[in-house]
């Protein structure tokens, strides 16, 4: 083994530092939090901790392929270049597009953006960051004149009031959440307010929870602005408003009707709670507003962002330690993408198409004659244009739009009908690679080398831990190779990521003179060695701030023409489509604790699949009763755009009238789990961000003839049941199944699905049959080693899968285990762990409950001392506390 390599986690925008010990010969990886990294100081969440389990080569895209045939790089690159050139020649530069990802490294992103905007000459470079960050970008730009996150993570320790708005921080940014929890434990005066239509795990530390009506946030913050300024003794900061802002009067006028009664009614909040929140904001000096997709993913997301910023400007709670609006970014390099200009309305380095000088400046810097002069198509419009045949060639990099975009079935149709689809990815089989004409193997996280920027503007290195898998190449290399083949050799001479980073840094400082917030010109001449040793640094990094800068706007200066921050007059709007009699419920979507995006990597790690193994829909008990939905039954959810099937979770954490589904499942892991198919394609007119948190839907019970599950040591080869979900476990695959007709011979049916792949003479099926009840179970063992277990029943009464799942790691089963197999229950004396609560230490619900009872545990710390549960990433602490309370 070598010495540990410092790198950065590839998941959320917290941007945790990782210390990785790579064993190249065995392709194994030991992961630890980097205790020196300022984003996490050694902490990691369940996903980050499991990175070592996601690096297997099985399932990787290892070779280029064209039209389903594996080939070499030269042929694949030639074809991409030729097709793009010929398409451009015939239909013009706007007939091609690149759709990138916040998973790309800054260097990859820079080269892709430079190719499309600088040399192909189209604005058609957009990215999946459009789906999560663009409303923040637009809000920042309107208020500050630049896409600037003012504060930093350290502010969490200074704050006296932290407001989480539309953010399940506990699950989506677990390490930041733990930091807030720790801050609260250190400083009991720190108050936490959670604003969310959904009572999430983040409410665990909340002093006040406001179950705001879906989509009503702008009213809430207009109301706050109104409250702050109302009465004879306003709690605004008049001198700050006067010296550093513009537009206050207009913003206030727009909020003039937002008195507390109105807002309480509009947001469906308890007036006393609302008053308490407003009063806390008014009377607390250091206030942070942390917001995320609940704000951004809205057809009025930009206005919501500005409604929040307005309140910080009105009180001067910005640019000082412990204060300010803070956008929690979703992806590891959403910020890096914004910095290079990866969104279609951006040009490069925080310059955009709205300024002719910027266009000219970038053109000169790049030495380009054909630079794009107008914004390109944003994600939803881009795929509509593909659908309409206006964009004829598209190159998708490191993202899975067939799953993640709204109205995703249309996206699928669009790509099916597209003349030329190129997909760069590290995974072979995704819903999107399935539609690619050319597949290009990109390096995976453990092989890539470059930089990423996290939510607090901190640039960190991602470093290669292993040799590339198969023929995989860095994205910047792939793009550069295509660019050269398209005739742009001179502009894409790159041999290393350091070289690209230098150019990116140089552009950020080019004719900047303090005009633009994003300036890392101090890195413009960085040596390869310095680049390799680059320490995590917050931009700007220039001659004034050679070591970076923790907070912007501490000097009261903004990047607007006047140098003053702008209030935006907000007229709150309803979501694009409201519930009606056909679609009476509001569908909310979001992330789970242990999965990342479209599961291409996290679903490889068995331990991450235990927390929430199956697509589900959360629904309030009142609605469940209204629509005849039993807990743990299946439901069909339909919108005007599409449908999905999900397991019913009845919970009062949902408001009546609202349902929630996780965003992660794809056609690779579930037959009907793609929530994107339902999501309405409304976008914010300014940011073009889709309204993924609010789609009118209807729900009804799906009653298959039977349900069941198969646990199999080997992947099944063909599944014929109507409903299936595939879940990778430790040395087995789990399939949750449901179907509309019962097989004549269940064993034969199971064999046909692939359970018999390893059937040999020495294997004999153990069987249980209760035909009158439609109850069928079977198990296959080879030399007492468990190979497959099948449970099928009409009544949907099944044991938990935990004990059966645990048997696959055993070399042989003993007699009592063998005899207990088809009960699904452990033999007497064997503890059943129950469903996994703590993914880090693999601790189950039953284990925790038993320990609480038998050992009289009182606090989650007690549980941690006893079982270690909750002591690593801590994101299961809310669930442990729920168990303690029950």
């Amino acid at each position: 083994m070598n010495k540990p390599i410092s790198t950065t986690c590839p998941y959320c925008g917290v941007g945790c530092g990782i210390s990785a010990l790579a064993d190249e010969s065995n392709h194994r990886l030991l992961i630890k939090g980097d205790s020196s990294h300022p984003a996490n100081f050694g902490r990691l969440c369940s996903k980050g901790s499991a990175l070592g389990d996601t690096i297997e080569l099985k399932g990787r895209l290892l070779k280029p392929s064209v039209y389903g045939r594996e080939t070499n790089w030269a042929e694949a690159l030639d074809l991409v270049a030729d097709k793009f050139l010929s398409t451009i020649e015939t239909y013009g530069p706007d007939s091609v597009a690149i759709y990138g990802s916040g998973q790309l490294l800054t260097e990859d992103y820079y080269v892709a953006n430079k190719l499309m905007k600088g040399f192909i000459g189209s604005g058609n470079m957009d990215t999946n960051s459009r789906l999560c960050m663009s409303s923040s970008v637009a809000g920042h730009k309107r208020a500050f004149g630049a896409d600037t996150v003012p504060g930093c993570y350290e502010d969490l320790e200074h704050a006296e009031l932290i407001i989480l708005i539309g953010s399940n921080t506990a699950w989506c940014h677990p390490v930041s959440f733990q930091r807030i929890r720790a801050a609260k434990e250190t400083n009991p005066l720190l108050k936490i307010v959670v604003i969310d239509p959904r009572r999430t795990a983040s409410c665990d530390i909340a002093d006040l929870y406001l179950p705001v009506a879906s989509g009503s946030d702008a009213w809430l913050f207009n109301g706050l602005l109104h409250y702050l300024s109302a009465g004879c003794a306003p709690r605004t900061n008049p001198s700050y408003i006067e010296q550093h802002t513009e537009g206050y009067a207009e913003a206030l006028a727009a909020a003039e009707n937002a008195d507390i009664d109105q807002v309480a009614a509009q947001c469906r909040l308890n007036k006393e709670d609302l008053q308490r929140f407003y009063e806390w904001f008014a009377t607390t000096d250091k206030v942070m507003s942390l917001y995320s997709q609940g704000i951004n993913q809205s057809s009025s997301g930009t206005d919501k962002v500005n409604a929040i910023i307005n309140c910080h400007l009105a009180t001067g709670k910005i640019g000082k330690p412990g204060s300010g609006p803070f956008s929690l970014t979703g992806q590891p390099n959403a910020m890096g993408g914004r910095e290079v200009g990866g969104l279609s309305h951006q040009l490069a380095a925080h310059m955009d198409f709205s300024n002719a000088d910027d266009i000219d400046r970038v053109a000169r810097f790049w030495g380009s004659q054909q630079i794009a002069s107008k914004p390109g198509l944003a994600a939803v419009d881009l795929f509509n244009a593909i659908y309409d045949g206006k964009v004829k060639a598209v190159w998708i990099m490191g993202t899975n739009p067939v799953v993640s975009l709204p109205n995703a079935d249309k996206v699928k149709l669009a790509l099916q009908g597209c003349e030329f689809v190129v997909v760069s990815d590290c995974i072979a089989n995704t819903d999107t690679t399935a539609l690619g004409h050319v597949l290009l193997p990109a390096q995976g996280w453990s092989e890539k080398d470059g930089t990423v920027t996290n939510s607090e503007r901190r640039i960190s290195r991602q470093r290669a831990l292993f040799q590339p898998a198969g023929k995989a190449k860095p994205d910047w290399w792939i793009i550069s190779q295509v660019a050269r083949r398209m005739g742009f050799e001179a502009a894409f001479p790159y041999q290393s990521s350091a070289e690209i980073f230098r150019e990116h840094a140089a552009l950020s400082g080019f004719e900047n003179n303090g005009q633009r917030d994003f300036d890392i010109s101090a890195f413009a001449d960085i040596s390869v060695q310095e680049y390799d040793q680059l320490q995590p640094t917050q931009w700007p990094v220039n001659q004034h701030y050679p070591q970076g800068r923790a907070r912007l706007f501490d000097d009261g200066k903004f990047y607007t023409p006047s140098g003053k921050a702008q209030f935006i007059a907000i007229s709150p709007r309803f979501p694009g489509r409201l519930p009606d009699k056909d679609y009476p419920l509001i569908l909310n979507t979001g992330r789970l604790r242990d999965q990342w995006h479209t599961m291409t990597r996290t679903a490889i790690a068995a331990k991450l699949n235990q927390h929430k193994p199956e697509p589900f829909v959360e629904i309030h008990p009142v609605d469940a009763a209204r629509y005849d939905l039993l807990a743990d039954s299946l439901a069909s959810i339909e919108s005007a755009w599409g449908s999905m099937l999900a397991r019913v979770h009845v919970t009062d954490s949902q408001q009546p009238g609202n349902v929630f589904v996780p965003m992660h499942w794809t056609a690779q892991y579930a037959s009907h789990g793609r929530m994107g198919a339902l999501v309405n394609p409304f976008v914010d007119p300014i940011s073009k961000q889709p309204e993924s948190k609010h789609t009118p839907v209807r729900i009804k019970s799906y009653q298959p003839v039977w349900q069941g599950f198969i646990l199999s040591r080997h992947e099944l080869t063909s599944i014929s049941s109507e409903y299936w979900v595939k879940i990778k476990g430790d040395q087995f695959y789990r399939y949750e199944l449901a179907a509309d007709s019962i097989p004549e011979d269940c064993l034969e049916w199971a064999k046909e699905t692939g359970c018999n792949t390893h059937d040999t003479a020495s294997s004999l099926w153990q069987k249980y049959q209760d035909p009158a009840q439609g109850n069928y179970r079977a198990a296959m063992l080879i030399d007492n080693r468990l190979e497959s277990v099948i449970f099928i029943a009409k009544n949907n009464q099944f044991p938990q899968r935990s004990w059966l799942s645990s048997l696959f790691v055993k070399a042989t089963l003993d007699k009592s285990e063998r005899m207990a197999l088809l009960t699904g229950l452990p033999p007497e004396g064997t503890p059943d762990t129950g469903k996994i609560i703590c993914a880090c230490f693999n601790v189950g619900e039953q284990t925790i409950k038993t320990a609480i009872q038998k050992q009289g545990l009182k606090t989650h710390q007690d549980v941690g001392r006893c079982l270690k549960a909750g002591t690593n990433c801590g994101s299961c602490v809310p669930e442990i506390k729920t168990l303690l309370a029950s």
Partner: protein
Amino acid sequence: MLNSKTKQQRLVVIGNGMAGMRTVEELLSAAPDQYDITVFGDEPYGNYNRIMLSAVLSGDKTIEDIVINDRQWYVDHGITLHAGSDKAVVGIDRINRTVTAKDGTVASYDRLLIATGSQAVIAEVPGNELEGVISFRDIIDVDKMLAYSSSHKHAVVLGGGLLGLEAANGLALRGMEVTVIHNNELLLNRQLDKPAAKMLQAELEQRGIKFKMAAKLEALRGNDQDHIKAVQLSDGSELACDLFIMAIGVRPNMALAQQAGLYCERGIVVNDTLQSYDPSIYAVGECIQHRGATFGLVAPLFEQAKVCANHLSAHGVAEYITLPTATKLKVTGIKLFSVGDFIGDDSSESIRFTDPGVGIYKKLVIKANQLVGAVLYGDTTDGVWYQELLEKKTDISGLRDLLVFGKAYAG
């Protein structure tokens, strides 16, 4: 005949077997001094456990092991025992209430208990009187079988029922080459269903026992000394044979009762108190017919003994009810169990569990949420529990999903 204990009533028991003696034991415990008891038996022993004869044959037990009550026991309890072939009762005088033995011994009774048991059915084929053709009923038979096994090679057992298979297994263990002739496709066809019967046959075959299934016996052929030498089947095939065991069932010994004018059909007909048509005469065991049924297994006999003793002791409250009887095969290492209606019909449902890898098969038959039958092979741990559920008519709907996995899971 006068007795010193003249105040006592006199009970005479015909038959020194398990049913009769169990009744006496029950009676002694319920009313120790009520009767002056006299027992007639045509075997020259005390009382022994006939169902353990298989174990004696197979060598798992000795004769001493299976003795229940030796002669001293009779002395200790003041019971007059007349044992031996010359003490076989030959007549009952119901008018004078006496019984007479072959040797002329006469005993008077106030109450008479007939427990004459049953005798083996002898196949009506030519040669059935040859030497070396025996049944498997008592110690004498076992002694013969043991003697043959040490001097002869070929044994043929007629009947693949419980007794036949136990005999076959015992003889095989004693070193004989054994063939079982059975008139059905399935062994124990009244106690097992097809899967269990097939598993049993396979397991016995593994032990070296050969089977002629669905076969019909044509004739037994003897040598010059009128000793059996071969068995001829109706398909023309022939088996060498030195010892032939008839194990095709039993029939009640009721000749004595009939002769005394007691009402008999297939057995001595008794009511629910085990009383015959003569109020002073009771009958228990394999010689009786109760509500149309005759008996061949031990469990109901013990139940009859209890009820009968209850009435003899004038408590007079118990009633005998024929319950489904569980089957067990006394062959070491083979576990099988069945009870009730384990085949089922159109109105019944079944739950099946099979694990051929370890030779386990279980089938439960359910009607209207009650267990009505069970057959278990390979794992009989829960047989007793299923019998309980069946007898108590327990509603099993709540345990159904785990029922077949036994009490540890479902109980």
